[in-house]
């Protein structure tokens, strides 16, 4: 039997936390081709800039995605600050790095848990999510909310981290580092995990680049590109080096993210150490007039904001290209040849965020 069967994977599927459909064409158990069907989470929020003013839009950008929300608001605020020529105080730039990295930490931990769930390792899912709660508690203690922080604003940030917050952050990071060491490192050597990830969903460096993949998906295939290298916010002062693996399979993508978690911990420590004393925001006057492109690195890769203002309080155009949108073409190249049972793991290995993708 070598008939082609079409299997709709999603929109409601046990391993998918979000609705997306992949129409899989199968020959027996092997995937021949995949076609994404999206639009289940499309809201059209870019058009809200026409009714909300440019300061209120910060809250909308935070809700493009609830997982990397702070980083979205950083991208947006940096864009507006470029248009308006606002100089952000140095301490605010460091604080933006700190909360960006706590977001990356909790996002990578969340993804690690979901990956474990996708290959049926529920115990690991629970262990990782327990460790993740420490990051959320830290965000609540320093920024006042667990998930969507609302601390980034045009011209700086709203809250400062004082000595108590600094001590708490360092203590949390020490504990988290131990937890990651205890959970993640043995897991990378685990026979079962390796069986499900090594050599699965392999993609070459050339094809990854050609398909325009970004973030850990690209870095796991040997492309040393990380927007943090451009030194936005305070990254230029923190000796940042991107994490790179070369195998290009699910295991490499897992390795990249585990190493990035440790890197994030290190970056927060450095930022706390080098953070200068200064005000945390500057007042912003007037309206944005002009256009710009703002790019930052999210847990899933590069996010790009195009912003255009015409001197009114509303922006004329906001356009967001999120990392998952860029990684879907690479995913479509990973799936052909894979077994149906591996499709959930491969799909999760790009860390899909559908809410970002469709906006």
């Amino acid at each position, binding site marked *: 039997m070598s008939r082609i069967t079409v299997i709709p994977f999603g*929109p*409601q*599927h*046990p*391993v998918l*936390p*979000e*609705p997306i459909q992949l129409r899989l064409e199968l020959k027996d158990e092997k995937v021949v081709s995949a076609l994404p069907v999206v*639009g*289940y*989470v*499309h*809201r*059209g*929020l870019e*058009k*809200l800039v026409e*009714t909300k003013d440019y300061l209120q839009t910060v*809250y*909308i950008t935070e*809700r*493009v*995605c*609830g*997982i990397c*929300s702070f980083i979205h608001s950083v991208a947006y605020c940096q864009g507006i600050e470029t248009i308006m020529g606002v100089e952000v105080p140095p301490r605010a730039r460091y604080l933006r790095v700190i909360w960006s990295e706590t977001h990356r930490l909790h996002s990578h931990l*969340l993804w690690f*848990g979901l990956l474990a769930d996708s290959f049926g390792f529920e115990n690991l*899912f*629970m262990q990782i*999510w*327990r460790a*993740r*709660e420490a990051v*959320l508690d830290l965000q609540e203690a320093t920024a006042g909310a*667990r*998930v*969507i922080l609302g601390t980034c604003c045009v011209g700086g940030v709203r809250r400062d981290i004082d000595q108590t917050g600094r001590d708490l952050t360092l203590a949390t990071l020490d504990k988290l580092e131990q937890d990651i060491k205890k959970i993640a490192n043995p897991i990378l050597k685990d026979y079962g995990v390796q069986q499900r990830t090594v050599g699965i969903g392999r993609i070459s460096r050339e094809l990854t680049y050609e398909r325009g993949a970004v973030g850990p998906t690209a870095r796991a295939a040997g492309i040393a590109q990380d927007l943090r290298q451009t030194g936005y916010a305070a990254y230029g002062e923190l000796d940042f080096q991107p994490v790179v693996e070369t195998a290009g399979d699910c295991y490499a993508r897992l390795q990249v993210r585990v190493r990035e978690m440790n890197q994030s911990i290190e970056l927060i420590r450095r930022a706390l150490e080098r953070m200068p004393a200064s005000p945390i925001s500057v007042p912003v006057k007037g309206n944005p007039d002009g256009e710009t492109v703002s790019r930052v690195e999210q847990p899933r890769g590069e996010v790009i904001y195009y912003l255009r203002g015409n001197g009114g309080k509303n922006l004329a155009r906001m356009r967001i290209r999120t990392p998952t949108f860029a990684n879907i073409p690479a995913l479509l190249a990973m799936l052909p040849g894979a077994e149906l049972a591996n499709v959930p793991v491969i799909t999760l290995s790009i860390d899909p*965020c559908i*809410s970002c993708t469709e906006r």
Partner: protein
Amino acid sequence: MKVLAKSPWAVHFNCNSCNGCDIEFLACLTPLYDLERFGVLHIGNPKHADILVVTGSVNHRNARVLENVYIQVPDPKVVVAIGVCTSTGGIFADCYNILGGIDKVIPVDVFVPGCPPRPEAIIDGMVQSLAKLEAKRAGKKVEPARKPTFTFRPPAEAEAPVTPSPAGSAGRGGKE
């Protein structure tokens, strides 16, 4: 709360959410918040479930999917709506592709307000839904929940709920 006769299982459907509520719901299932102490298990198959947990508002493409998932959950069932989007559309209420709260498509038993709600609030909502589930199992009539009043728009702009329609576009033509 009285001792429950059964362990209610929950299926989660993300309608149009930004993930903020979804990750908070998943956080409830994990060791720190541990919804399992009330017997609640998270499962992927709607046919196994007693509780349908929904996050996000409905749009033109997922309204049908939500209805479909709801129909597949066997009776008696309860619907827990997490986040302000499920009630009115929340911050996205004015977007062109948003139809409004999920009560336009399916009846809701508990609304949990917040953007996103804290895990404690979600647990509270789940426990309230268990009482309603028990009542439904006992054959009592249970009224659908009212929306949290502070999530409403001013009455002039408020929209009348539309009765759920069978699969198709009738009854959800727009926001007027």
